[in-house]
């Protein structure tokens, strides 16, 4: 147990040992920490500007491309798979976030043996089954295959209903 094994500050009085002394706002030290960390971080990125020499040349200022003069903008379009990854992350993250509240109460319910334990367990299991189905679907549909994009298998089109028009891949149509 915290505080129960020999406290080095015991001579300062009972309020320092044995029982966790809560500050007025338990988050206060975190804010202090954030302030200190921000100051240090900003100081560190700014210091070299003060300390270092400043002799800039056109060659130094050009972007590094292995000695070749850069062509075009560096802010190019990038593969759509990155967007897909980001969307999947948000999706799964939100799905799992729903479980946080359950996880903090489940142990208490199990220890007390309330019916809520069993009930909520099965509810979460149903949720997890859907979660796994979603996960399998994502994997199965090739959302995370980096070289492939999903195209429909020819079998999907079934038998040709109309013989005079053989089935071809979809054509893009930009009719105004």
């Amino acid at each position, binding site marked *: 147990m915290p505080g129960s094994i020999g406290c080095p500050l015991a001579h300062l009085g009972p309020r320092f040992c044995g029982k966790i002394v809560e500050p007025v706002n338990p988050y206060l030290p975190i804010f202090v920490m954030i302030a200190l960390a921000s100051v240090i971080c900003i100081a560190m990125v700014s210091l070299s500007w003060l300390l270092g020499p400043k002799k800039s040349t056109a060659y130094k200022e050009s972007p590094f491309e292995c000695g070749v003069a850069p062509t075009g903008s560096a802010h190019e379009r990038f593969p759509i798979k990155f967007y897909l990854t980001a969307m999947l992350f948000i999706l799964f993250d939100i799905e799992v976030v729903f479980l946080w*509240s359950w996880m*903090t*109460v*489940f*142990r*208490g*319910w199990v*220890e*007390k043996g*309330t*019916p*809520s334990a*069993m*009930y*909520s367990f*099965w509810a979460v299991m149903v949720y997890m089954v*859907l979660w796994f*189905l979603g996960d*399998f*679907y994502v994997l*199965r*549909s090739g959302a995370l295959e980096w070289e492939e994009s999903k195209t*429909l*298998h020819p*079998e*999907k*089109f*079934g038998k040709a*209903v*109309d013989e005079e*028009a053989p*089935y*071809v*891949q*979809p*054509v*893009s*149509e*930009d*009719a105004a």
Partner: protein
Amino acid sequence: MNLGDAPLTPAPIVWEPMLPMIIVFVTGVLCMCVEMLRPKQTNNLIVVLSLAGLAVAGALIVLDWTAAVFHQPPSEFFGVRFGGSPEEAGGGLFIHDRFGQSVQLILIASTFITILFSEGYLRERRIPFGEYYPLVLWSAVGGMIMASTRDLMIFFLGLETLSIALYVLAGLNSKEKRSQEAALKYFLLGAFASSFLLFGIALIYGATGTTHILGIPMLMNHASADPTAGKILIGGIAMVLIGFGFKAALVPFHMWTPDVYQGAPTTVTAFMAAGSKAAAFGALVRFVGAITQPELIDAWLPALAIVAVLTMTVGNLIALAQRDAKRIIGYSSIAHAGYLLVAVVAWAHSRGSIGLDTVVYYLGAYSITTIGAFAVLSLTAKAGREGTQLEDYNGLWKRAPFAAAAMIVFMASLAGVPPTGGFVGKLLIFKDALDQDYTWLAIALGINSVLSVFYYLRIVFAVCVDEPDERRSQFAKPNAGMLTAAGACALAVLAMGVFTSAVLQTMGLSLPAESGSASRSVAQKP
């Protein structure tokens, strides 16, 4: 503190009334699994599965109407309770009433018919993705959720389930620029509208302290209510109505409709025009039903009435100038949203003295008619291409006389010509509007109906009279699914026109005094 210390026991959840939704949802999951397990085979199994699931769900609702199958004595099975009072379905989040079930049934029927003619169309468009079916089914589940809840969070959940699936579906034909445009436009505007809705929900929650819409009348009835809360509430209601108005394509939130209807694959458009609209109006009715206080009614009903007139007029006038069949139906769907809004306004104004039968009846007639029309319109898809200009339909009567005949029935119903469902629906709206002294609304409706005849006739002429241009008119051979869909829709539209009282009685939504039926209507209460 550990939340596990709280003495929580599972909230009693009554599952049966949610069964149709659960069944449709699970069917979607199964369809996805089938697609996942055999991606290199046709979608036939998926189609059969979806149709079966929808049929079971629909049959359950009808069974509940006739035999009250959802009213079971309470029982427990593995810690999960079944049975009990169906009014508390889903732990009080869902309501089990005739109105909700009627809208659910409309949604199920719309999805069923859409799926019937989807596979042929998708193959002709070269986009037979197996994912199409689960997405349509989940979208339908979202709509069903929207129609059968009174909790704003669940409204939102349903709306998002409905919308997100539709965003994907609208862009299904990702190789075509117009489909991409439709998807992106729908997504951006839809997300914008969702944020309106969500912000409105937040404001309502801030004012009333609950996400249940009955919090609104409770707050307003409370004599010592904080006046600021009332103001916040008004803002919240406005924003929620904007959100629903977008989904239902009411003017001035209609801009997306024609582009999306034109760009999306025709089957998706069909589902959007019918299912999405039914869901949006279901939710709108629930929401408007909660605003029963005189102060609020004075604030909102005139606005809604003006929106109704604007919607039908703008929709009809712009439709007159269109040359693209899908766009025409798109604008016509805006106009029909205006007609429906008249029914909603009259119902809200009556404060329970007239039933919801008009709304549901019109919604049903409109949905079936529109889906049938789109089924016929889908015939121009061939070999990966699809022409939707009016000229592209010239000569359809030669190639597919049956479909052309069905098209005449659908156009007659949309225009409101007897003996079709559309005619009776409009008649019911007229009656309600006149009952509630909304004569000007009734007159606007009448003028607009006459206006709309022109463009419906234009489609009929294109399909049945004009000579085909051999270079333009290419039709796929009508397949069994499409013929069944169009035939069933045509028959249903005619049957709704002929056996009106029987249909109304089965729905059981009219008030006892009017219909003489003993069935109790829950939905007419807020």
